[in-house]
């Protein structure tokens, strides 16, 4: 087995508002192996982005990161001081954002912005720096790199900007790239190009990728393993193929059922009834229980923990623990009676 690049143990990120506090990320544990792509899936507000910012140490007050351990290459990121953390950011762990058009500083040329991420960590100047920047632009497949070097962000399209963002992220050859919905703002053909680009760079440079998305298609395309998050918790994890073909948690099953299927002509798509509960209303039980058609009494009383199912697959569901059957979770109308 390959060595782990990142290991997160019981990560908990707490936000306080008017004396009330809640854990946007609640005791999650996972790891990323070297050269692997881990997909984190979940709907809006489930804690995906907070997880990535927690790892980067970029949670602002009133947020607070607790947890046992975030180990990155034998360093505990949670105990590092600001200065040491800055040296890791961009150099060993870097990030790609959702909105490429607003992620570039409008007042600087493309070349200068890529160059900056090199200059922060290494003492490179002049033509040497320029050469490296142009090489990076070539790496991310930008045509006419010398010309784009002198362009300003508003002169680039969304796809181009995202390539530049990837170039910035790759500037110092990081070991881990956290991509927070890198393709969400792009149209489908550009999405495919960007994903392919990330894949090919990964093959060339061997870095690990943590890909945050809500698109199961993207996950199946590029990820090796995946986590499914719901309301700040990991509900299912495993190798992508296993999870997608044989989902164990009703939520994962619900997500998969809600995808449109080839050859099936339906007026309405399946959906999971209800909404993600507000973090202030998380009860003691399973957080998905109110929307789950398989919910049992126990589900409302006690929160299930992740159970090993085999072959690295884990799920947090009482049904799995008790060996129940999982079918037809997401027939919207059937479940209305169960919702309280």
């Amino acid at each position, binding site marked *: 087995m390959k060595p782990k690049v990142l290991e997160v143990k019981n990560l908990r990120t707490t936000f306080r508002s008017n004396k009330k506090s809640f854990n946007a990320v609640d005791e999650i544990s996972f790891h990323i192996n070297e050269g692997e792509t881990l997909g984190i899936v979940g709907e809006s507000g489930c804690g995906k982005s907070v997880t990535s910012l927690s790892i*980067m140490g*970029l949670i602002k007050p009133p947020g607070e990161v607790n947890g046992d351990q975030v180990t990155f290459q034998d360093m505990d990121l949670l105990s590092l001081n600001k200065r040491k953390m*800055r040296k890791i950011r961009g150099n060993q762990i870097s990030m790609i954002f959702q909105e490429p058009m607003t992620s570039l*500083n409008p007042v600087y040329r493309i070349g200068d912005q890529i160059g900056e991420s090199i200059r*922060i960590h290494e003492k490179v100047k002049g033509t040497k720096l320029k050469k490296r920047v*142009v090489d990076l632009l*070539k790496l991310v497949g930008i045509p006419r790199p010398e*010309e784009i070097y002198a362009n*300003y962000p508003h002169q680039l399209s969304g796809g181009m900007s995202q390539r530049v*963002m990837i170039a910035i992220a790759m500037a110092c050859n990081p070991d881990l790239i956290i991509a927070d919905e890198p393709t969400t703002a792009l149209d489908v053909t550009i999405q495919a190009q960007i994903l392919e680009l990330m894949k090919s760079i990964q093959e060339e440079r061997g870095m690990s990728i943590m890909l945050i998305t809500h698109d199961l298609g993207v996950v199946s395309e590029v990820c090796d393993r995946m986590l499914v998050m719901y309301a700040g918790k990991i509900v299912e994890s495993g190798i992508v193929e296993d999870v997608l073909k044989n989902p164990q948690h009703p939520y994962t099953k619900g997500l998969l059922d809600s995808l449109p299927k080839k050859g099936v002509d339906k007026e309405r798509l399946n959906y999971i009834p209800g909404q993600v509960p507000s973090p202030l209303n998380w009860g003691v039980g399973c957080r998905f229980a109110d929307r789950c058609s398989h919910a049992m009494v126990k589900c409302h009383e006690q929160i299930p923990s992740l159970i090993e199912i085999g072959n690295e697959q884990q799920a947090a569901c009482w049904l799995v623990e008790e060996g129940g059957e999982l079918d037809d979770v997401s027939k919207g109308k059937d479940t209305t009676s169960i919702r309280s």
Partner: protein
Amino acid sequence: MAQLEPANNPEHVTIPLKKSSKVKDFLSLMVKSKSVLIGGIIVLIVILSAIFAPLIATHDPNEMEMSKRLMGPMEEGHLLGTDNYGRDLFSRIVYGARVSLEVGVVSVSVSLLIGVTLGLVAGYYGGWLDNIIMRTVDIVLSFPVLLLAIALVAALGPGIDNVILALGLIYWTNYARIVRANVMALKEEEYIQAAKTIGSSDFRIIFYNILPNCLAPIIVVATLGIGIAIVAEATLSFLGLGIQPPDSSWGWTLSFGMKFIRDAAHLSIYPGLAIMFTVLGFNLLGDGIRDLTDSKTK
């Protein structure tokens, strides 16, 4: 750029790459922009007349000719007439450019230095630091400007240098407020978050990533501030705290001429025009430079 190898794509090799330096680019753009050109010429005229005052002035600015008091413009070789002591107004205005320019530019620079720095810090860090800085701003703003200036100059001692310092120490509040408001909006931008993820320090984010993005309003307010400072100096000089007679600044000549406004309006009109002209020049220049530095107009 020339030493780099051309792009992979052979069809693009023929595209001539721009070789001119940034400075050259900027200068050629400046000439194209009308407001920069006009503003630049005006400011240049004022600066040159300040530097070459002895060559331009037709008379000694402090020489009194009692026989030629309160003469109108163009009378007996006095281009703009004379004041109540018979001193040549044109020469006094030319020499006054030295003082007024110094007051305007230096005091605004002092204000900018204090105001922009504190505004950046307050806006970026927020919290108690922001509270302390902005409450200080409130306190300074709660005093009438003139009263505060008089108190400061009285404490520092009369003289043009102390007037400049006092004005600088009073007018920084505008810049602090404007910059703070801008920074508070800018720091939520995604590219600032992105700058953090590549390991930029706070110092770098504030001065390299945020500051250039809020230059536009700073330039506009600063160019207007030059005019305000020139007039404020006039008031203080009029009260005997600024420039000491027989030297004069535009503001002082203007306020002094007010006494004779019914008989010799030109005594106030011409220094007033000089102030207006200068402020207009700085304004056009500042505005034009703002447009030029805006990456989107390139």
